[in-house]
């Protein structure tokens, strides 16, 4: 059997593997009745039509299939696997609402979600979609929602913390891979959060109930919940989620790339040069690092690429995501990443969640108005920056912002200049170790320069 994917070993119903670059999902015998119920109930067709579940097709079993093999599915490929700790508030909120909507439709057709894991949601063509086809089980009358705890931990608790405390708490999902423990969330949320009935019940009372009944099995009679009751729980969760908001205010870089950074015609020239180079390279996949709200990411989209737009600022990512949703864009995925501490490999045996580099595969990286933040704000040597970018992609479009530029002067205003190498010659020398400089363009009205680079063959 080919490469079984790291996070795919908890569910006995089946697993996911990659063979010759294609992702497949095997349904085991034990998972077969529930899978068949999903298909026969009409739920699969309904959810796929509503773009809530990934489409798949059944394919012949591989020659070396295990004895408990029931079916082999080939799901539609998801462009880029992202994780909740890389999402902005709006992405996590939309993923939560999608999960509730899926469960509502499942119940109506006699099925139920057996997990409500945020990692099972991926952004596919701009929208949150469930990718785990085996997440459904046949609904049994009177049984509570088995994934209720997981929903509260993966969605409701982090969203409430981001709303009431600080949007940066979204990054905590990186520490708690099975969601924020409810006792921790209940301890950290302010009193006013409990004035919302749904948060008080689903987080505070829930945490208290967990503590009170820890270790003891609940008698079946005490846990009976009718189907109508399950509908009420979903309504309560949805009411809680819908009331949680984040408004990106004037955050760090919100007006960053405004005309002010460039002289007359500089920004237009920058856009024209980037568009021309992208048109010539015609990349399929582009990563825009330091994308802000995605102006240049969209130039790459227009050149026909599928783009992942990374930024460190949650407000910028939120604005970018709203642009995606409002315009119905399908080729752009905004994510929050700190390039100085990108997502590591995580989970059991470091194999459940892949690092950013493990998920890399762009044909081209854009690094515009970025290098001075890495080199000066974060003291990263230029050669190390070049090494990292060469690790990500064979092609690079990068902007050098020299000393003397108002933005760099701002960064240097409060600290001694310990960056003698940080000038045009030093930049070109450092990057020439890993890349061949194919072309350079000066931007009018400033000392900034754009470079188009190709990774040296022996550095691949």
């Amino acid at each position, binding site marked *: 059997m080919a490469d079984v994917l790291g996070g795919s070993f908890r569910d006995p119903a089946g697993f996911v593997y990659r063979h010759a670059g294609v992702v497949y999902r095997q349904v085991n015998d034990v998972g077969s009745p529930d899978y068949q119920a999903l298909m026969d109930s009409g739920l699969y067709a309904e959810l796929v039509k509503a773009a809530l579940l990934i489409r798949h097709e059944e394919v012949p079993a591989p020659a070396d299939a295990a004895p408990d093999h029931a079916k082999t599915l080939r799901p539609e490929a998801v462009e880029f696997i992202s994780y909740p700790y890389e999402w902005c508030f709006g992405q996590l909120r939309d993923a939560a609402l999608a999960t509730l909507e899926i469960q509502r439709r499942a119940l109506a057709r006699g099925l139920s979600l057996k997990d409500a894991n945020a990692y099972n949601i991926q952004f596919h063509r701009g929208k949150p979609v469930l990718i785990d086809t085996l997440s459904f089980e046949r609904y049994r009358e009177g049984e509570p929602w088995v994934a*209720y705890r997981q929903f509260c931990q993966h969605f409701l608790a982090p969203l409430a913390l981001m709303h009431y405390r600080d949007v940066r708490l979204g990054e905590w999902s990186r520490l708690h891979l099975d969601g924020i423990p409810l006792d921790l969330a209940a301890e950290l949320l302010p009193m006013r959060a409990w004035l919302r009935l749904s948060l008080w019940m689903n987080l505070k009372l829930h945490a208290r109930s967990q503590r*009170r009944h*820890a270790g003891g099995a609940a008698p079946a009679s005490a846990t009976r919940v009718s189907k109508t*009751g399950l509908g009420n729980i979903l309504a309560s969760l*949805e009411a809680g989620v819908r009331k949680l908001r984040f408004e990106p205010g004037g955050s760090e870089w919100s007006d960053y790339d405004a005309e002010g950074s460039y002289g007359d015609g500089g920004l237009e020239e920058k856009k024209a040069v980037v568009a021309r180079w992208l048109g010539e390279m015609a990349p399929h996949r582009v990563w825009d690092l330091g994308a802000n709200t995605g102006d240049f990411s969209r130039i790459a989209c227009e050149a026909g690429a599928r783009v992942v737009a990374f930024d460190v600022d949650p407000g910028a990512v939120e604005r970018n995501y709203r642009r995606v949703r409002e315009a119905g864009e399908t080729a752009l995925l905004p994510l929050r990443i700190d390039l100085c501490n990108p997502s590591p490999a995580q989970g059991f045996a470091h194999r459940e969640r892949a690092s950013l580099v493990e998920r890399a595969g762009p044909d081209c990286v854009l690094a515009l108005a970025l290098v001075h933040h890495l080199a000066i704000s974060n003291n990263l040597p230029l050669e190390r920056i070049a090494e990292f970018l060469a690790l990500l992609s064979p092609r690079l479009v990068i902007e050098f912002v020299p000393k003397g530029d108002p933005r760099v002067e701002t960064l240097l205003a409060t600290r001694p200049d310990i960056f003698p190498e940080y000038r045009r010659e030093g930049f070109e020398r450092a990057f020439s170790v890993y890349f061949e400089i194919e072309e350079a363009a000066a931007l009018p009205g400033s000392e900034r320069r754009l470079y188009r680079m190709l990774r040296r063959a022996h550095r691949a």
Partner: protein
Amino acid sequence: MVGREQHVRPGRRASCSGSDPVAPERFGWVFGCLGLLAVAVLAGPAPADPVRLAYLDPGSGSFLIQALVALVAGIAVALRTYWEKVKSLLGLSRGAGGGSGGDTPGDDG
């Protein structure tokens, strides 16, 4: 009235949707709280035992609370439906303030 409502619902943020909440939401909320208060009193205080971390046990506590949530959210839904009926009987329009953001049953506002 406006001041009182803000007193009842200080959790509302300026950034939330700007619509005025409709009366039945408030009604359901108050009744829901009364019901919950009764249940919470019946349930008694939680053991103050910080060593038994909640997430060690994924099941029973999360199962047991669902019956309560289903009940209280159900009461809120019922009260709201009832109130809507009363309002329509009295010929009160639900134009101003209704709708936005509160489109789900069991909405606690």
